[in-house]
């Protein structure tokens, strides 16, 4: 009775394990093992992972084999009579020494791979990666190209609590971004990691690259990608509310494509945010201080377009912390609705967005957003989200800050 239930349990366990690996083999969309990746290092890491896994399997089979043999044979119900021995220095030495030897034989290749992973010398190019709550900033060092990268906007809507959106329609749900990090294959790329607010960790499994991004410090590691392709990863270090929603996407392309992409990036705008389509209001500084009631036809129009554009910027840049409805998550992230700053003097409002608030998660947006976008989002905050100050802020006001 007992032995049959034990046998069944073992059979199930083996079935589960084997079943698991079979599934891993035939279901490509649902891998169940570590990726082999796209770099020499990631292959080495994979091999180490499998080697230590097999070592564990062999030890496990031996140890559990003996144990279950004993459980079946040496039971009272089978008439087993207990032996009296309780000590043997020889076996103690053997089962101390044998594992030690196995460990040393595993430590040597592991150390070799580790040394290679840490060798960031002689890189062909350098990308500086900054983690922010909750997006990434990429800067191609010496190329004057930099941009932000954050969760795909559609996914961002779908992932809200009670969004009512069926997330299974998105194949890359939570694994897709607005701006991919484009990298050339066959080049040794050095990554510099830092953060602006809290600790993040930039992780792309296929590159076997995971490094903490620590505010005030710079870490480094590297990758040389062998195969063109898209490689997806995630922020790996808990970084607050939306930690689960800051994916990483690397697109590896040939050197020529990369060069072309770089030129295009430099030629166009360095910012990913909607290009300044010349806000009509910006032309006249006289309308810049238009206040409620005093606005002429020009101010009316500009207010509308400011609001529309500001709403977009807000949804993309600010809603993560201050929430879509402007309620924030007090006390960490203040509400905009009814905020003393957002309903008070306009200068203070411009100041906090342009220059941020050091020591808090509120970053400086000057340089990150165009002056036009900042003006628009301020206008939006003052006249949307339940606020109705009535004034419209212009880029020229922001420029002076």
């Amino acid at each position, binding site marked *: 009775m007992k032995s049959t239930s034990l046998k069944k*349990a073992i059979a199930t366990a083996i079935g*589960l394990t084997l079943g698991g690996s079979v599934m*891993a083999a035939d279901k490509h*969309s649902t*891998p*169940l093992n*570590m*990726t082999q990746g796209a770099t020499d*290092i990631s292959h080495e890491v994979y091999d180490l*992972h499998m080697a*230590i896994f097999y070592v*564990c399997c062999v030890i*496990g089979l031996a*140890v*559990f084999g003996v*144990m279950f043999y*004993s*459980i079946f044979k040496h*039971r*009272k119900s089978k008439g*087993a009579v207990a032996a009296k*021995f*309780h*000590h043997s220095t020889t076996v103690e030495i053997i*089962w101390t020494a044998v*594992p030690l030897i196995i*460990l040393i034989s*595993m430590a040597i290749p*592991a150390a070799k*791979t*580790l040394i290679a*992973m*840490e060798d960031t010398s002689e890189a062909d190019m350098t990308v500086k990666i900054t983690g922010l709550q909750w997006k990434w900033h990429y800067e191609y060092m010496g190329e004057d190209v930099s941009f932000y990268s954050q969760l795909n906007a559609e996914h961002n809507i779908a*992932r809200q*609590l009670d969004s009512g959106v069926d*997330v*299974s329609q*998105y194949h*890359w*749900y939570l694994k897709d971004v607005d701006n991919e990090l484009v990298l050339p294959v066959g080049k040794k790329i050095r990554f510099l*990691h830092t953060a602006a607010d*809290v600790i993040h*960790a930039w992780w792309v499994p296929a590159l076997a690259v995971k*490094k*903490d991004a*620590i*505010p*005030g*410090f710079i*870490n480094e590691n590297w990758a040389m990608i062998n195969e063109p392709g898209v490689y997806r*990863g995630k922020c790996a270090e*808990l970084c*607050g509310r939306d*930690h*689960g*929603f800051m994916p990483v996407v690397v697109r590896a392309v040939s050197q020529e494509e990369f060069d072309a992409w770089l030129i295009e990036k430099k030629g166009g705008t360095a910012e990913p945010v909607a290009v300044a389509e010349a806000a009509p209001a910006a032309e006249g500084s006289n309308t810049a201080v238009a206040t409620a009631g005093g606005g002429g036809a020009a101010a009316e129009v500009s207010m509308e377009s400011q609001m529309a554009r500001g709403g977009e910027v807000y949804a993309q840049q600010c809603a993560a912390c201050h929430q879509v409805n402007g309620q924030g*998550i007090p*006390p*960490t992230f203040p509400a905009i609705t009814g905020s003393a700053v957002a309903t008070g003097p306009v200068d203070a409002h411009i100041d906090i967005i342009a220059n941020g608030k050091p020591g808090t*998660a509120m970053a400086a947006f000057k340089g990150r957003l165009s002056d036009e976008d900042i003006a628009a989002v301020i206008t939006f905050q003052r006249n949307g989200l339940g606020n109705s100050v009535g004034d419209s802020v212009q880029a020229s006001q922001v420029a002076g800050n």
Partner: protein
Amino acid sequence: MSAAADSHHDDHHHGPEKNFVKRWLYTTNHKDLGTLYLWFAFAMFFVGGLMALVIRAELFSPGLQFVDPQFFNSMTTMHAIVMIFGGVMPAFVGLANWMIPMMIGGPDMALPRLNNWSFWIMPFALAIFLSTLLMDGGGPASGWTLYAPLSLQGGDSFAFVIVSIHFMGISSVMGSINIIATILNMRAPGMTLMKMPLFVWTWLITAFLLIAVIPVFAGAVTMLLTDRYFGTSFFSAAGGGDPVMYQHIFWFFGHPEVYILILPAFGIVSQIIPTFARKPLFGYSSMVYATGSIAFLSFIVWAHHMFTVGMPLAGELFFMFATMMIAVPTGVKVFNWIATMWRGSMTFETPMLFALGFVVMFTFGGFSGLMLAMTPADIQYHDTYFVVAHFHYVLVPGAIFSIIAACYYWLPKWTGNMYDERLGKIHFWSSTFFVNLLFFPMHFVGLAGMPRRIPDYNLQFADMNMWASIGAFGFGGSQLLLLYIVIKCIKGGEKATDQVWEGAEGLEWTVASPAPYHTFETPPEIK
């Protein structure tokens, strides 16, 4: 209790106080306090378990269905702290209270009033901790590790979290002092150190670990507190501090802490297996030395939790080698248990089943631990569900199974009644089935790239997460059965003999069942 009727019950040498409140509030009796600790831990296991079920409900399928991500984060954070500080540690202290004096032939703990105090701090500490959920900004949400600077964001509930951690720490340190004083001073004549039961040995070493590291943790969280409220910058680079220093200090506490959670479990299993194999423990002295070596090594491996923070290569290599070394004494333990079973005459009552389940599944967690020790691979595993699977294997079918095993093993001694063996077996098999359904799939999603501490995930992880969630609810439900079995056993059942188990050896089995309120007031003879 069965103490002879006596008129002067205020004299503590005779029987328990009759007034319920006075008895439990004022008690200095090690058995009463052991009982309090165990019931408290049991309650906290359910509280922490409910938090785990919130997590698993949200992770049942992709998309956010039930909770805000911030609340999700505070569930993962609070689940861990409640389980570690409110569940596992008090449960082990409860077992120590009940059993150590009886196992070494002493009349009580060495410092009975301190004992009362260390217990009664706990309910207040946990109450403060749990009340942060109702405060502005919600409970702590930066993970149980409270890494700066993330832990410094958030509401003022933070100050309450710190104060409750200080209380929990004070309670543990006082408990440890008491255990050390008891073991070193209260042994019956002839009970030399190398004759002590292994449970006593492992607790002695654990208590020293606690005294060594709890103050370190207290220091770390105090620095967080001053960074937050008093303008210091220990962990802020902007003020010349270093966020990574927090992690070093934390894990200097945190790694020994994980051994604090497992060494007493080793002790329990080393008591139970010989009893049901009807054969003395194999390699007693090597078991003692292995425990000591593990405790020593636990102080020099802390940075293996930090392989991705950007340590110098030499540091990474050192911590990799030191971590791999831990497999040696841990292996010795497992081999000794199996050698104890070898050519024994085994029976499989519920305590033995849980102890064997411990050996198998703890070893399983040990294997994934060995994999994690390999730094290059750890860089892939780190902060994924693979790690979650690993430490839950060593803590749930590891530490918690050992606690359950201990409860079944000593319940007849505590209550005088046998528990329902049939239900106990059902409890074991359903717990074992569901615990594996819960944690085994986590290895796969972790390897496939699912980070830990996320409330939502891509479809590719959906199947495995669904299984894990079903396992979680099944496992949680199975523990209601344990509650029922314990209550039923207290209420009645087949009367237990003094010896209780045919193969049981040790002083605790020489006293009556249930154990009288006071035992070994005159020390026993040790042969």
